[in-house]
């Protein structure tokens, strides 16, 4: 087995994507661009002077820079933590690594609002830049951890063996061959983290760190004039586009794929030796801060206050609704993400890049902006489904499709391009190749994307409030209602239920990915005996 860098030969790289992919991907892009269309309409109404007034307010530029600084710091930290944990749980002899790989993903199930509140209510010193950075890092590093862990499991051992046989040491091999293999996964995760940090409103606001999204919120609250908010939101869109373009440039030619299917052999396991206690300390420390602490505070909420007590007759319907809309949202978002992800990985030219960037463009917009965009279009052009489940699901799709796209793209990019080409040369139709070759290879990525969207939908609040069917409650909206009057003890059961419900797809996701990957490699990782220190 040998590996070859993907050359831009006259293979698929330069070709147009087949219609079977291109049409649904174009639909996905159109859906994702709805909020931007709305923002342009609102901004166009304003006229030049008003736009400049908003843009040149003293604080606009300053807050953009603050938001970018926060996003950069959170991304750097989340990549460090996510990659370290992914490597420790997949490639080393860390004790209990199977359990750790589930635990490391679980902070995704804790809404960052709950985590932020857990800190600020008990340790008020956790506030400002450092507090916001800490809470955001702890709630977003799984976006990096999950795809990178999956990619590390899929690395072709042959590549590492070749590197070792050429005289490189184990660390050098890891830093060169292995790192290059997982780079697309790291980039996809980092992008999601950066855009999450840019768009989040709840955490910085609870932890009292003034960022750009707060200006957008304040301008809705203050003037009831949607124009300044629209202008500011477009600034955020411009920033997002710049970030996604930079990310895809960085991906550039770094994507490698196996030529063959890989053979059934074990991946080398790095022995931690005397580094074991330190590795356990790092893994356990992250779990304690990201998961243990919020869980302890939730337990404390449950145990105090006269409003405590579980209203089952409200909790259960809210739980069922949450599950239902999360499933629908995940289905819709994943269905649209698959063609976009495949095109982005396989046909970067011929419109692939543009479509991918279009789907990401609105991803850093605060939920309220996306919600109002859909209110605008829904009330005017989709009255029959306005404030009904289909439009709510559409909102979730707009908001969270990129999470699924990143997973799909990373999985497809890592699987050998040649297999699809061989199938085509043997007379398969593009649809046949998709069904029999590309989709199975992208399976783990699709599953990961589905679970990620499901999780994020469960935690979504602003769009749910405005677009839900009148009278429907989700766990997140109940949580909002109870905390809105300071009834933290009454809120606790909803928070606990939300965390538990979100933990299910997280758990399944981390296991499914592992099993899909080991099926793919037809191997189980076995401990190697061979000095690796």
């Amino acid at each position, binding site marked *: 087995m040998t590996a070859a860098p993907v050359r831009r030969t006259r293979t698929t790289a330069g070709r147009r994507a087949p219609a079977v992919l291109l049409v649904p991907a174009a639909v996905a892009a159109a859906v994702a661009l709805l909020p931007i269309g709305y923002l342009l309409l609102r901004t166009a109404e304003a006229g030049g002077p008003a736009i400049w007034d908003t843009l040149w307010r003293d604080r606009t530029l300053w807050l953009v820079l603050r938001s970018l600084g926060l996003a950069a710091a959170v991304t750097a930290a989340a990549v460090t933590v996510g990659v370290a944990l992914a490597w420790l749980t997949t490639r080393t002899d860390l004790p209990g690594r199977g359990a750790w790989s589930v635990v490391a993903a679980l902070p995704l199930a804790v809404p960052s609002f709950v985590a932020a509140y857990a800190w600020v209510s008990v340790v008020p010193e956790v506030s400002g830049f450092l507090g916001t950075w800490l809470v955001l890092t702890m709630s977003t590093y799984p976006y990096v951890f999950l795809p990178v862990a999956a990619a590390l499991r899929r690395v072709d051992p042959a590549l590492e063996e070749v590197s070792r046989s050429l005289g490189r040491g184990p660390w050098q091999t890891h830093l060169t061959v292995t790192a290059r293999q997982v780079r697309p996964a790291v980039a996809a995760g980092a992008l999601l983290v950066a855009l999450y940090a840019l768009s989040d409103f709840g955490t910085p*606001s609870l932890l009292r760190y003034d960022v750009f999204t707060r200006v957008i919120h304040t301008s809705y609250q*203050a003037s009831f004039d949607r124009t300044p908010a629209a202008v500011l939101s477009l600034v955020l869109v411009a920033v997002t586009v710049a970030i996604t373009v930079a990310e895809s440039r960085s991906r550039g030619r770094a994507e490698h794929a196996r030529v063959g299917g890989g053979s059934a052999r074990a991946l080398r396991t790095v022995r931690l030796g005397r580094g074991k206690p330190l590795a356990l300390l790092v893994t356990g420390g992250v779990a304690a801060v990201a998961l243990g602490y919020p869980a302890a505070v939730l337990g404390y909420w449950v145990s105090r206050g006269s409003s405590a007590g579980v209203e089952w007759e409200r909790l259960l319907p809210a739980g069922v609704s949450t599950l239902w809309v999360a499933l629908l949202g995940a289905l819709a978002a994943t269905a649209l993400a698959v063609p976009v992800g495949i095109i982005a990985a396989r046909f970067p030219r011929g419109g692939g890049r543009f479509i991918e960037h279009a789907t990401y463009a609105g991803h850093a917009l605060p939920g309220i902006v996306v919600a109002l965009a859909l209110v605008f279009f829904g009330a005017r052009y989709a009255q029959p489904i306005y404030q009904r489940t289909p439009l709510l699901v559409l909102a979730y799709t707009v908001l969270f499709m990129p999470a699924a796209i990143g997973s799909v793209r990373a999985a497809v990019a890592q699987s050998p391009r040649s297999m699809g080409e061989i199938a085509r040369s043997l007379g398969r139709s593009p649809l046949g190749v998709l069904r029999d070759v590309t989709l199975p290879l992208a399976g783990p990525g699709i599953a990961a994307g589905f679970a990620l969207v499901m999780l994020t939908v469960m935690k979504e609040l602003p769009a749910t409030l405005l677009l839900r069917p009148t009278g429907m409650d989700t766990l997140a909206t109940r949580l909002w209602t109870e905390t809105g009057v300071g009834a933290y*003890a009454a809120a606790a059961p909803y928070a606990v239920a939300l965390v538990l419900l979100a933990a299910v797809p997280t758990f399944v996701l981390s296991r499914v990915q592992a099993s899909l990957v080991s099926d793919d490699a037809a191997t189980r990782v076995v401990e190697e005996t061979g000095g690796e220190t």
Partner: protein
Amino acid sequence: MSLTNRRAAAVAAGLATALSLAACSTEEPAEQAGDATDAATAAVDDTTLTIYSGRNENLVGPILEDLEAAVGTEVEVRYAGSSELAAQLLEEGDGTQADLFFSQDAGALGALAGADMLTALPDDVLNLVDEGYRDAEGRWVATSARARVLAYDPEQAPEVAEMTGIDEILDEAYRGKIGFAPTNASFHSFVTALRVDRGEDGARQWLEDFAALEPQAYENNNAVLDAVNGGQVSVGLINHYYWYERIAEEGADAVEAEIRFLDSDDPGALVNVAGVGVLNGSDAEDAAIAAVEYLLSEEAQQYFADETAEYPVVEGVTSTEHDLAPLGEGLNIDLNELDSLEETLALLDEVGLT
């Protein structure tokens, strides 16, 4: 102002039994309320009354349920933040399904009235409240009122118990020890009242002095109260009823903070209102007007006074549960002026308090 256990229990029960209206939207309307007011005449009942409520379900859920019985029309409620709902209504325009907007503050109602989305209410409904509690053109009416107060930590700042005006907190002793919620609509209303009362320069002067004391900014009134309770700050600027809610939630023993009502002619004691307006083109206008009438009935006013610890806006109703300081004549501010938020925010921006 200590609470009796009975009172705490009553408020807690009120909060805990808030039932989702939606849950019964598919069932028959609930039993006729015990002594539903005559004012709310039964409306045509083959329509649905859709209420957008910016007020929290835990606070107004029970009374909206009684409203459904009193008005005799099926009621559907959508709960979200007042400003988000105002933005939503403005985006929906003519396509809105909403019949009634129940807002946490006058500003959101003023914005909708300004966009010509609210219909003028009949005189007999408007005349149920004093002029100060309704829109000059009759497009919305207040349903309850709340006062700005100083929450304080009696250990750190016992002297607050004697304060009469908002200027008294501009003292070096409180450097870094004042909590406030800069994004909160009620705080904005207070600043607007300051501007209306003292003029732009007077308001700017006060805000600059305030900012120089490095006040601590929090997310909302509850967070400010948390900070006073925890002793991180010694004084907090909040609305009076947050304190009553907190006592109901945790019991009087667990709440360190006390509150002080300033003199009623001081901007720091501004009275804010929650209110309602009927949307233009509502397909259930009669039911919507009957609903407004119900919210101003003695029964509903008693609910606000007892259960949410707010001030009634109708003569002759007093709280049987809470020891609320009587509201004086107040500032005589036209509440519609409180929607001049643009200028308020510009001023806050200028002094660095956003």
